[in-house]
């Protein structure tokens, strides 16, 4: 028996190495008290270095470590999205009660762990690294959701996520087992060849495997009817974590969705695309109608995320390069739109007495336009109105869908967007068309009370402290403004982002050939 060590391309795996190293360093800060305050900065540094290494590797696709991973532009594109989200999450987590509860080092280490999982997932090129990546992504998130330990809801959301998430993982695993069983390989390339071979194509064993894999991935991307964890977990989790989940998890899961379905199972696309299209349609309907009348902004965004996942799934359904382009483009702009929204929600959560209730933003247009504008732009963008990137994103998706003969799904997107206006604009209306003297007064009263009587505040476990100046903190207003600016910028000059996503699409379809 000879040991044949795999070739290790250190340049290729440098982002993963950087993340791992960063994770360990950040974890150290948890142990050494004086370093505690440095954790966020070290995390940002790690993310920055990883991003830099990613840029270095841009445009040089290669298989890594015995084909377990493949770094290409699709992987990097999604990785950039995840890194940006994570960086924003770090900023939003400044002074977050959840961080205090979990310990800054642990919190950030877990965050980095999740990002590491994403890095693995987006590059995953065989079933095992796919599964491990997905779990590395998920498990830290289960914990992070529950980090606001003082809040029952946070615990509940963590637990719900864990239970349903594990169910999803088990189903996914089972599906992967069947895919492995019917093709005899764990490698995506081999699977692609196996699937296309006679006797396997259309075999029930393979198809049931695809069905179960689809369920698992649909679960991760919050596609209905596997979406039900989303609103609950989004609402219960600490808001920075919600924003992280909303964008990064979805992006990473969609990346592997693309890689696995369009590449490994590409030959079967004629069978799975209709099924996924139906799921997309159900998501669009369920997400949009569910979001109507939600008072919790995070919950509303959760449902909206379900609907958006339905839109994005459209890009996958058509199994075409333009579909993938559209999906990646949409994910990129989804990052900006969500970030702008969540940054404002975090600010208002800390500033007002209403938490993430819609009442917390009432009258914001007059009181704090620098917060109202980003949220407005985010809502308009999510609704897909022009001059925001959301419009271009929908345009891109619809174009891919129509070209792929899924015009009916395009119509669903249109109708869904229409319904979505009702809840997105409700937020806008609350900001600009209502005044909120009462809310502000209460918040101020509560703030003074909190500062006067810290003991009582501490004793009341459900109440988070009020920070009356949260609205003008640069680490909240800054990301909000930048993300909103990006939303508008890419709405007017989308070409850079279009090219970015075309790289991604080409990366995967050059494999398909």
């Amino acid at each position: 028996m000879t040991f044949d060590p795999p070739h290790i391309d250190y340049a290729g795996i440098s982002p993963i190495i950087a993340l791992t190293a960063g994770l360990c360093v950040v974890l150290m800060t948890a142990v050494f008290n004086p370093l505690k305050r440095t954790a966020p900065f070290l995390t940002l540094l790690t993310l920055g270095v990883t991003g830099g290494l990613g840029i270095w590797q841009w445009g040089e696709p290669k298989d890594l470590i015995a084909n377990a991973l493949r770094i290409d532009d699709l992987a990097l594109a999604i990785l950039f999205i995840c890194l940006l989200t994570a960086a924003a999450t770090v900023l939003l987590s400044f002074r977050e009660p959840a961080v205090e509860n979990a310990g800054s080092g642990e919190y950030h280490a877990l965050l980095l762990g999740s990002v590491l999982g994403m890095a693995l997932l987006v590059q995953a090129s065989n079933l095992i690294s796919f599964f491990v990546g997905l779990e590395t992504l998920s498990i830290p998130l289960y914990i992070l959701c529950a980090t606001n330990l003082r809040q029952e809801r946070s615990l509940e959301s963590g637990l719900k996520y864990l239970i349903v998430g594990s169910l999803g993982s088990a189903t996914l695993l089972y599906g992967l087992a069947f895919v492995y069983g019917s093709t005899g390989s764990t490698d995506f390339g081999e699977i692609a060849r196996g699937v296309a071979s006679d006797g396997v194509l259309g075999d029930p064993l393979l198809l049931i495997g695809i069905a179960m894999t689809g369920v698992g991935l649909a679960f991760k991307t919050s596609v209905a009817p596997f979406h039900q964890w989303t609103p609950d977990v989004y609402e219960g989790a600490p808001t920075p974590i919600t924003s992280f989940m909303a964008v990064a998890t979805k992006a990473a899961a969609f990346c592997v969705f693309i890689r696995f379905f369009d590449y490994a199972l590409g030959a079967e696309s004629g069978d799975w695309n209709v099924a996924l299209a139906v799921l997309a349609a159900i998501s669009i309907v369920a997400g949009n109608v569910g979001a109507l009348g939600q008072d919790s902004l995070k919950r509303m965004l959760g449902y909206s995320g379900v609907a958006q996942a339905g839109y994005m799934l459209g890009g996958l359904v058509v199994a075409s390069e333009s579909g993938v382009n559209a999906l990646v483009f949409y994910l990129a702009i989804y990052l900006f739109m969500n970030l702008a929204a969540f940054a404002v929600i975090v600010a208002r959560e800390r500033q007002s007495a209403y938490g993430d209730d819609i009442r917390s933003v009432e009258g914001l247009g007059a009181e704090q336009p620098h917060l109202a504008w980003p949220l407005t732009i985010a809502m308009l963008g999510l609704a897909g109105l022009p001059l925001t990137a959301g419009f271009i994103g929908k345009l891109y998706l619809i174009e891919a869908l129509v070209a792929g003969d899924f015009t009916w799904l395009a119509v669903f997107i249109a109708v869904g967007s229409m319904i979505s206006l009702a809840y997105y604009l409700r937020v806008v209306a609350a900001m600009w068309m209502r005044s909120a003297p009462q809310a502000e007064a209460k918040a101020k009263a509560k703030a003074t009370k909190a500062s006067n009587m810290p003991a009582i505040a501490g004793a009341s476990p459900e109440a988070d402290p009020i920070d009356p100046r949260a609205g003008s903190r640069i680490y909240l207003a800054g990301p909000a403004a930048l993300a909103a600016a990006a939303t508008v910028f890419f709405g007017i000059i989308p070409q850079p982002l279009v090219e970015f996503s075309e790289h991604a699409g080409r990366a995967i379809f050059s494999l398909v050939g």
Partner: protein
Amino acid sequence: MVEVAFFAGAIGALGGAIAVVGLRNPFYSVLALIIHLTALAGLFLLLYAQFVTAAQVVIYAGGVMVLYVFVAAYVGGVEEPAWEPIPGQRILAPLLAGALFIEISIAVLGSSLSGLGSEGPELPLGFGTPADIGQILLERFLIVFEAASILLLLAAVGAVVLAGRKPGDGETTGAVSAAGVMGFTPDRGETAPAESGEAG
């Protein structure tokens, strides 16, 4: 002989599983799971997966189950109420489970893949032995191996975060993480054998 072993293992695994679901007391469920896992380990052995069998016994039956027992003992055996609050769940749940079983079985039995009906091909010598597995793991799945260890680290950190005592809990005001490590040793103890088990 193989058939007898298979059916014995199958009955053990299935019986254990049904017992886990059926027994009212969580503590007994934990014990039933141990039976299930052990029986499954036997089946793995029948499939020429020696290392998996060993890991199953060591990690699961030995390690994870200890953890379960600890926690079950810690939180106490709480009987579940018989009342079902979700309408339709009691009827739909078994139906759905049955449907899943039938669908998967149809897929398995309806498949035209040639290998399914056979016992499988002749296997090379040493298939599934620790050496074989170790070599594959380090040659082809190195990154997976490393990732799994990071995952375990993260899970450990997570357990500390979740179960550790906090200053707010009013027991100690020391460093949070230190208190966590001190206050919740079992999982720390569990991660070590898992890592070492793979390395071997």
